[in-house]
């Protein structure tokens, strides 16, 4: 049975094996991305991390009687921009609704959200898997809403402390259709959305600070059957947690179903310590948010000229940049994919590749530099080796001053802060010896000292390798390998 929600072809490789046969996981995600604004969605209080309790709260955020919300134009613009980045339809007429529920960190007693008429409609995101293959995730909608405050439960054994600094901060909730079929795909999708909002500058994508959070709707079914009942998992704020939570939850649902039980639609919390999800009992009573249009706010009408102007201001997006890096520099899909994940990476690469062998620069950037940065936990913005020095290193290889082997040593010394590639080469005398006279004299001495080995080469040409190794050793690896081979072959009569 299929419907327009259920359009992804089943892939047996992604099935989970249960006791009684295979199961398919079906997932849709809700991503909450905090708008990177100075002030809140409906008030002039500051948005930020690390201020003292209740210091970034206006009387609107505290829901004092008589306060009226006034929408932040910049936040609206960021929602439109993000919608355009998700290749989605922008709705020129949208409206805010009240989502009613009671919790101490929600002083209004309702969250201002968009229920029936969101600012952004359907879109699509192209996602890369780790192996470089791609899949699409359809976007259902994006709407603007307020964040809640923060409840702190561990400061007092008998009381909960409430800080409203986060209350009223603008969030973009990005809702996907149920197009995701494995935990790896779920993580890859969140990564891709994060890359897009970071390119756009609409959200800083900081998962640790909770500025980008994902709720995962997980259900399982027998391959070919209709959609199963889903559970929503909250509190997954890292790629690893997302994957672990999904793996656990899918297994749990399969066990319930294989034991003849049924899945109850509910909200579950992931516990990263125990690596399990558990039911949020407080939400067990049927949620009834009683949405209705917020009478404090007029409909949000967007001028088509403004939407056009925002569209014209969009930066080059990751998919376009990836295609350009492939065509302009001849890079592989994999290398260009790695470079576009962070804008700073591709900026670095393009600076270094200017006028140089583009593939060689890509190799040194992705294989050596990014690996080294990852190991030391640094970002490319703070790379101890600037792009000019990667360019310099590649230039030394291109012009034959150093071999690729020596280049690794030069790179290590650059990483250690010994200066530019030229300085490192000069300081340690790492210039490749292409002077055939010098190489010849080393080879002559070797042949004279090892007449038996020289004789053996005539019988068995593969034995030449020993001489090559010895010459490299004698010259400290600085001899030009091509020149060494040629001279050896001539002198030993191997062709």
């Amino acid at each position, binding site marked *: 049975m299929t419907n327009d929600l259920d359009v992804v072809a089943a892939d047996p490789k992604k099935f989970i094996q249960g006791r009684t046969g295979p199961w398919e996981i079906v997932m849709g995600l809700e991503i909450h991305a905090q708008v990177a*604004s*100075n*002030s809140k969605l409906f*008030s*002039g*209080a*500051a948005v930020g991390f690390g201020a*003292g*309790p*209740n*210091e*970034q*709260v*206006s*009387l*609107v955020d*505290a829901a*004092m009687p008589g306060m009226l919300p*006034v*929408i*932040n*134009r*910049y*936040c*609206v613009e960021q929602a439109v921009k993000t919608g355009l980045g998700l290749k989605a339809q922008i709705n020129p007429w949208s*409206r805010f609704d009240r989502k*009613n529920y*009671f*919790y*101490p960190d929600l002083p209004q007693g309702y969250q201002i959200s968009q229920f029936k008429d969101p600012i952004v409609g359907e879109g699509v995101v192209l996602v890369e898997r780790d192996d470089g293959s791609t899949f699409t995730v359809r976007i259902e909608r994006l709407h603007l809403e307020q964040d809640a405050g923060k*409840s*702190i*439960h561990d*400061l*007092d*054994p*008998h*009381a*909960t*402390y*409430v*800080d*409203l600094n986060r209350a009223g901060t603008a969030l973009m909730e990005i809702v996907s259709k149920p197009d995701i079929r494995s935990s790896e795909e779920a993580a890859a999708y969140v990564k891709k959305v994060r890359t897009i909002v970071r390119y756009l500058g609409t959200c800083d994508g900081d998962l640790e600070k909770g500025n980008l959070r994902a709720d995962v709707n997980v259900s399982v079914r027998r391959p070919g059957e209709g959609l199963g009942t889903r559970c929503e998992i909250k509190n997954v704020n890292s790629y690893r947690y997302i994957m672990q939570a999904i793996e656990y939850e899918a297994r749990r649902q399969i066990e319930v179903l294989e034991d003849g039980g049924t899945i109850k639609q509910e909200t579950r919390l992931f516990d990263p310590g125990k690596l399990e999800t558990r039911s*949020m*009992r*407080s939400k067990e*009573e049927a949620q*009834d948010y*009683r949405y209705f*249009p917020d009478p404090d*706010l*007029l*409909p*949000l*009408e967007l001028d088509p000229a403004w939407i056009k102007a925002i569209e014209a201001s969009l930066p080059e997006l990751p998919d376009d940049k990836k295609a350009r890096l492939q065509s302009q520099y001849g890079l592989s899909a994999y290398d260009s994919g790695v470079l576009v994940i962070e804008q700073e990476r591709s900026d670095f690469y393009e600076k270094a590749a200017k006028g140089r062998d583009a593939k060689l620069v890509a190799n040194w950037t992705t294989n050596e530099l990014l690996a080294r940065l990852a190991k030391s936990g640094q970002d490319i913005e703070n790379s101890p080796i600037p792009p000019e020095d990667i360019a310099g290193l590649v230039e030394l290889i291109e012009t034959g001053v150093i071999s690729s082997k020596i280049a690794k040593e030069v790179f290590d010394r650059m990483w250690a802060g010994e200066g530019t590639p030229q300085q490192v080469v000069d300081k340690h005398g790492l210039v490749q010896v292409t002077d055939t006279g010098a190489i010849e004299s080393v080879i002559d001495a070797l042949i004279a000292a090892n007449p038996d080995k020289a004789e053996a080469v005539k019988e068995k040409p593969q034995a030449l390798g020993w001489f090559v190794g010895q010459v490299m050793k004698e010259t400290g690896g600085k001899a030009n390998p091509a020149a060494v081979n040629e001279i050896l072959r001539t002198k030993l009569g191997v062709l």
Partner: protein
Amino acid sequence: MAIDAATVRKVALLARLSESEERLEPLARELNGIMTWIDMLDEVDVEGVEPMASAVDLKLPMREDVVTEGGDPAKVLANAPSSKDNFFVVPKVVE
């Protein structure tokens, strides 16, 4: 739409209002009375009329993204029944 005692109980719970069992029936009767008045609106033919979003002919006013408020926790906490170290303090809500 007829409102029964069970509906009143549910609405009261959602609104966090405490009502005794013996009040539920009388409240249901009162609310049904109000609903009867509201049902009169059904007599108006609204075929082809868009739902009204607002009674005023104004555009949604917008503000610029500048910080103009905050920095005064004492004012924010002024009406709080209980506070400590600039936090609101409420009964324990953790599950």
